[in-house]
């Protein structure tokens, strides 16, 4: 049992929506699997793709980027910028042997603690299905 693959996942979450939702999930004692570790950003718009690539190369099996719902961005439109960047990144990553689905962008609003817990648990399960990311050992970068 204990040798079953447990993924390591990093989450870049925006301070105003998803981080707040994570707080709410905690306050409401919504149990989550412990595989996700969060990096607090002020906005998903400041998540440079190099942070995601760096995470994948340094040992993360999956990366979650999560911010405010479209139209709700605390900084007007940072989440749209994140959406474009993640989309482009997801088109490039497979060329380096990193499967689709390892990088995911979601919207979780500040009041959606239950949604946050569900998002985290679902993403962990998805990555567990994908298995360990072996591309990093073969990557030429």
């Amino acid at each position, binding site marked *: 049992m*204990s040798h079953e693959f447990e993924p390591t996942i990093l989450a870049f979450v925006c301070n105003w929506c998803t981080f707040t939702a994570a707080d709410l999930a905690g306050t409401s004692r919504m149990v989550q699997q*412990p595989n996700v570790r969060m990096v607090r*950003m002020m906005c998903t718009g400041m998540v440079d793709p190099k942070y995601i690539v760096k995470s994948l190369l340094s040992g993360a099996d999956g990366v979650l980027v999560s911010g405010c719902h479209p139209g709700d961005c605390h900084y007007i439109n*940072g989440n749209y910028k994140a959406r474009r960047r993640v989309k482009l990144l997801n088109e490039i990553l497979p060329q380096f042997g990193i499967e689709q689905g390892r990088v995911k962008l979601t919207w979780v609003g500040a009041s959606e603690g239950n949604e946050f817990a569900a998002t985290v648990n679902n993403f962990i399960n998805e990555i567990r299905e994908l298995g360990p990311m072996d591309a990093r050992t073969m990557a030429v970068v």
Partner: protein
Amino acid sequence: MANRIGVYVCHCGSNIAGKVNCEDVAGFARGLKDVTVSRDYQFMCSDPGQEMIIKDIREYGLNRVVVASCSPRLHEKTFQQACARAGLNPYLMQHCCIREHCSWTTEDPVEATLKAKHIVEAAVERVAEHQKLFSREVEVLPDVMVVGAGIAGIQASLDIAKSGHTVHLVEKSPSIGGHMAQFDKTFPTLDCAACISTPKMVAVSQEPNINLMTWAEVEDVSGFVGNYTVTVKHKPRYVNEAVCTGCGACLEKCPTKAISEFNEGIGFRKAIYRNSPQAVPSTPVIDGDICKKITKDKCGICQKICPTGAIDYEQKEWREVFHVGSIVLATGYDTMDPTPMREYGYGKYDEVYTALQFERLNNAVGPTEGRIVMKNGESPKSVAIIHCVGSRDTNYHEYCSRTCCMYALKYDHLIKDKVGHDTKVYNFYIDMRCFGKGYEEFFKRVQEEGVTFIRGRPAEIVQEDGKLVVVGEDTLLGMNVRVPVDMVILCTAMEAQKDVTEVARIFGVAQGQDGFFLEEHPKLGPVSTATDGVFLAGACQGPKDIPDAVSHASGGAAQALALAAKGTVSISPTTSWINPDICVGCKVCVGLCPYSAIEFDDRRNIAVINEAMCKGCGSCAGYCPSGAAQIKHFNENQIFDEIDGLLGMMPNYLPREMDGGEAAQVSTDNQPGDPA
């Protein structure tokens, strides 16, 4: 010089220590690079906890501090201030969360302890890269804008005006008073709503510190706390407010009729109208969509009859710009349209009313002059009141609208009082929620007046032999009931205003799942929002009765005044910075910046941040192809090190292998009780 880092792991009573082995985490931190001292303590946020940090900073000469406790949204400021007291720049502290994101959400103590170690390691790695930052003080403009002039907006405006500050009060309808102006009586005291609200409305119009703008809407908001620039759009009233005396001659002569919105569709108004004779301001407004003069250039009788020549068909909409220090949102609520609930037959059967329509029936200046009569002019012999229409219903709104039980009781009393004590009144309720001061007593009184309470939400309303039959189940008796009545009142849910999303966007505030504006904290920050300098008042934050809306509004006013009275506010220094040595002058960031805070310096051929306008969103830093743009406190070295720390321990995550299960069991014997 190597850093000297202090790590402080909080037990938070048993909140953290109940799952996470705090001693183990502190011990682990002791072995990390440059960590000079690492301690665990029961309550870091307590005075002795903070003193411990301050003492260590002085004694060990710490130049970096990591606190692992609750969410930084809760206590980051507390520990920053503690560091500042010890002479350490507050931005050299990193607060990481091992409670909300770890101990409270992780089931297994071993896994929780391991996760806490990762979080602490990341914070230690990150804090090494922190730099000293200094907040800026900016001036707060003394004026305040209040949006919405219902009872909450009125209360907030009066409170602020009393202190001597100028209030710009914007109301989208032709007169102020909001929903309260529609009511007849108020529960539980049965005060007449007009009698208690009219003096306040008049006070608003006479207060020299209040600039009242009705028939106007906020179109655009820009700026930041202390310095908001608000554009207000004045809709054309076609009546010159400065000249009109409010005599009302025009209202009588106007030949064009329309359904009255103020009377909730059960009465008529003219094309030139005001909501009620007590309206403040008393100046009428012409409905430009139906007025014959404006649409077809015919009629014009109001202009002929007006003794002061106040009618001006040529008025155009115009805009006005205000500079204010803070904004109070008091935009109120709407009631749900029950038409989609076809089982209740609203819109199909004449005698099914919404609660607000029934208020208007009751009101002395309403369509029936205060008589409770049916469409045929006769008094009803029996009335059914259906509670929770759209509230506490997963198909519509899950929340309780908080006011319906009480106003239903008020209707019970008014029907008995006005129509006669032999009138049968049936309440179909789920639970009676009479929580306020004097509410339970009122419930008792109404029960004694001979009103029938049937516990159960009705299934449907059908028409049989000229009567409306309420079909439902009495869940206390466990039997089906069919109650024939003459009139049905639906206690429709309070919901967010129809245009709430647009308003939220304009003011940059968020909405909760229920659609209402989201407060900063559900318990401890109910009037502030995540946007500094924008406060909430009244039912725009969630369903409220009048006393709650008024006290909430006074709270919002106090917050706005606190800013205005101090006159300055400190602005976070976590803005962007473009390294002039690296910037290649590609100008991409200039177009990306949502606040136009980046200027291009043609002489040096580089982009430059205007720190007064930058809010630190990082749009520029997230893109900058050369890495020249960096957000202070969130720069790439800090994020990279945090990533390293989070991933530090594990090429493969095998928690049980890496940490002895029994060692992680922590004793909670000496922990004091849960402080929350």
